[in-house]
């Protein structure tokens, strides 16, 4: 089977260029260097149709940058994101619309001066998917799809609660009949009970409209619940990808293991935390070799010197750790 989305050697560097003073000083023999952050560093993965792929990692690991590149709102420094048009549900929709994004903050992702009816219909009218006369009927249908009362069509975003606003954001994404949704921390800003409603909505929509998701979250509980496959990132690199059962039961990479051990869980109840020590290093000057070695219990001199490659250690289970070579 061919994947519907293929990401190859994708990288994104953010460069802070030199200011005038530093440039001048460089002319007279100083050596100021540009600061480069490798936000995403040579990432490869593929997603099959109908899958929900979760991306987990802590702040600064590059998961949002990755999501933005996949959604097409940030251009990659090198590498490519390819969407297989032959597998699209609706081949008449322009390819640029096939990937849509749902954002974290339902407050800042909606234009506060537009009514819901205009927010939801702006893109399909612009792309001539509907005519302006169909606007009201179309918006009504979209709101019903995401569980909002169509009576709210004329309202402004500030008249909604956080959960409802997130539903408007989802309706806006669905309005152009996308194939693929990138959800970047889409439920992180919501209360627990509202979170559950939106998660259920995502799963329902996937089944109804045959969607594929890249689901980015720092919340491992959410990822475990919703994903079929998980990508674990650390400082711009993928350290492990695994099917969900393997991720939960047999995580391979020491970082994944530490991450899973740190998750507070209801079932476990009161317990002693044994956290991994140390901070997340600055992405401006990441550690040499394996990025995780300064915090890793099992680190060897090789981990410090050599970057581990992402290798398949079991079917569909990839991990980037030198320890796998010795076993």
């Amino acid at each position, binding site marked *: 089977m061919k994947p519907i989305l293929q990401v190859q050697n994708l990288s994104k560097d953010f460069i802070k260029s030199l200011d005038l003073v530093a440039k001048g000083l460089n002319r007279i023999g100083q050596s100021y260097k540009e600061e480069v952050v490798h936000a995403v560093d040579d990432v490869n993965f593929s997603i099959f149709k109908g899958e929900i792929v979760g991306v987990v990692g*802590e*702040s600064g690991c590059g998961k949002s940058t990755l999501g933005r590149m996949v959604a097409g709102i940030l251009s990659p420094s090198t590498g490519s994101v390819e969407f297989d048009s032959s597998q699209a549900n609706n081949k008449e929709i322009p390819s640029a619309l096939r990937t849509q994004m749902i954002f974290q903050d339902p407050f800042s992702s909606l234009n506060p001066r537009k009514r819901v009816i205009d927010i939801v219909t702006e893109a399909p009218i612009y792309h001539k998917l509907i005519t302006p006369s169909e606007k009201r009927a179309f918006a009504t249908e979209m709101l019903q799809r995401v569980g909002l009362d169509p009576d709210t069509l004329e309202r402004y975003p500030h008249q909604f*609660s956080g*959960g*409802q606003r997130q539903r408007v954001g989802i309706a806006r994404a669905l309005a152009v009949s996308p194939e693929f949704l990138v959800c970047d921390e889409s439920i992180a800003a919501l*209360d*627990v*009970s*509202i*979170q*559950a*409603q939106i*998660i*259920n909505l995502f*799963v329902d929509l996937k089944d109804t409209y045959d969607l594929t998701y890249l689901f980015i979250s*720092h*919340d*491992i*509980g*959410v990822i*475990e*619940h*919703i994903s079929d496959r998980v990508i674990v990132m650390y400082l711009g690199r993928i350290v492990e990808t695994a099917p*969900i059962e393997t991720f*939960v039961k047999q995580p391979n990479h020491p970082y994944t293991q*530490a*991450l899973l*051990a*740190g*998750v*507070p*869980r*209801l*079932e*476990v*109840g*009161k*317990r*002693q*935390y*044994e*956290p*991994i*020590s140390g*901070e*997340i290093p600055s992405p401006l000057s990441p550690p040499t070799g394996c990025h995780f070695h300064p915090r890793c219990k099992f680190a060897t001199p090789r981990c410090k010197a050599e970057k581990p490659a992402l290798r398949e250690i079991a079917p569909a289970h990839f991990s980037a750790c030198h320890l796998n070579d010795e076993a």
Partner: protein
Amino acid sequence: MDPILKINNLQTHFFTKAGILKAVDGVSFEIGAGEIVGLVGESGSGKSITGFSVMGLVDPPGKIIDGSINFKGQDLSALSNNQMQGFRGNRIAMIFQDPMMTLNPVLRIETQMIEAIQAHDGSISREDARIRSRDTLGLVGISSPDERLRAYPHQFSGGMRQRVSIAIAMLNRPDLIIADEPTTALDVTIQGQVISEMQKLCRETQTALLWITHDLAVVAGIADRVCVMYAGRIVEQGSVANIIANPMHPYTQGLMGSVPSQNRRGKPLQQINGMVPSMLNLPAGCAFQNRCNHANEKCSKIQPDITQLADRRQVRCFNVPAGQQV
């Protein structure tokens, strides 16, 4: 043994132009020495205002209109602001979600810590205060505390800043710490570090801890007892083990069902329908009735009272299974 903090029927209301907002409406609970109590609720449930009320930090139009806050035999709600000043940061300390609410960005950590000590103990010398600050920083797991004392807050990462604010809270060996969402802004691995640090400190120093959070899973991991708040009232409280094993209030059940985890894969989450009602016009009767699957006519008319159960457990619901009541 007497509890460190005993709150009885606390009512903190906000007198706004739109009407009276009962942010905290009849809250009662206690915390013993060395005990960790989790206060759980969604945004707007009044959990933070409960913490602020204990600290005497409720600003107008908010006012504590009734109830008592008994701290080691003294009623804090009757004290003047000046008298409260002697308790704040000394016997009772608070940790906020955003450590920059505690830290002054333009002063060195050292200055801020020494100030916090000398404010409550005029006789201690600057050098002694500095030594105590250094030791406390070491206690919360900050390496090379001597150098770190000279640093400014912006030179620390988020997790380190939260440790510094925990250290400042610990400086005067308080009897009670109120922590308001202290790990919400932190990454999972850093959250684990902070939680384990707090657990250790409470055990070693017998400090009572009130841990305010929206995350039931965090509370399940750290607390001895838990109070679940909804619309200004505690709807259920008891030991963590009892409540996790057998939640009785429909809201607690809904909250637990909403937490996604590997065990519920493939099944829809048990969501709580609807949303938190506006605190300005709560329905008569039980505040949860509109979202509750078991609500009947009685719930829409009468405010349910607290039902006392075994093991100091309390539930505010009419539908507590028969035979459980004490």
